């Protein structure tokens, strides 16, 4: 009973996050400018991290947690580097 509830909730959450990723991918391809694309990449990264957390709940192991943590931190670093690139034209000066 309770496993059914959690299973359906996980399925619905996976679907919602996937639709969110598709919408962000639409913004990524549409643009119109580079900062919009960086924003979309950031949103896609966060949603992918949440998908990995949901996969961890579904699998019942907390081995997925480290992957989610690494994805969150790499998302921050990549977004900061891209914003710096948009600002200056180079990342490390």
């Amino acid at each position: 009973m309770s496993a059914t509830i959690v299973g359906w909730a996980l399925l619905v959450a996976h679907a919602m996050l996937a639709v969110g990723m598709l919408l962000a991918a639409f913004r990524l391809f549409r643009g119109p400018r580079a900062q919009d694309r960086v924003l979309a990449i950031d949103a896609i990264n966060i949603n992918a991290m949440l998908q990995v957390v949901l996969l961890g709940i579904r699998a019942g192991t907390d081995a997925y947690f480290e992957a989610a943590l690494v994805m969150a931190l790499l998302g921050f670093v990549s977004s900061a580097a891209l914003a710096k690139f948009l600002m200056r034209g180079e990342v490390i000066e």
Partner: protein
Amino acid sequence: MIADLPLWAAVLVALLVVGGAALGLLGALGLVRGQTFYDRAHPPSIATTLGMSGILFGSLVYFSVTGLRLSVHEVLIVAIVPIVAPVTMMLLARAAIFRDRIRGYEGELVPSQRAADELAQAEQEAARHPAAATDPEPPG
């Protein structure tokens, strides 16, 4: 394999997870629907803070109930991501302002069609009543 947890925990996990995912979807929807970059910069922050905390607290409850011990390492992500998200957003917004300034402000800073209409209407009003238009705004 999803473990058999007590009903209250299952309902709590389901609510947290579905609520967090719904907020993530809402943020992506706002990312698509915004008119300018500055409109679009706001909604994904809902996904990165509230949506993320919802799903991770759901994970915390699930692993705490099934593992029979407090599972606190999810709090690490919940603590880190809301700290670093405004940093990237501020860097990105400053880069966007810089790039808009290079290109020229035309059409970029008008937030929406409604605001543009209100601006045009206010200008018409000011043209109709020249005396009212002369009172200056407070400085600063």
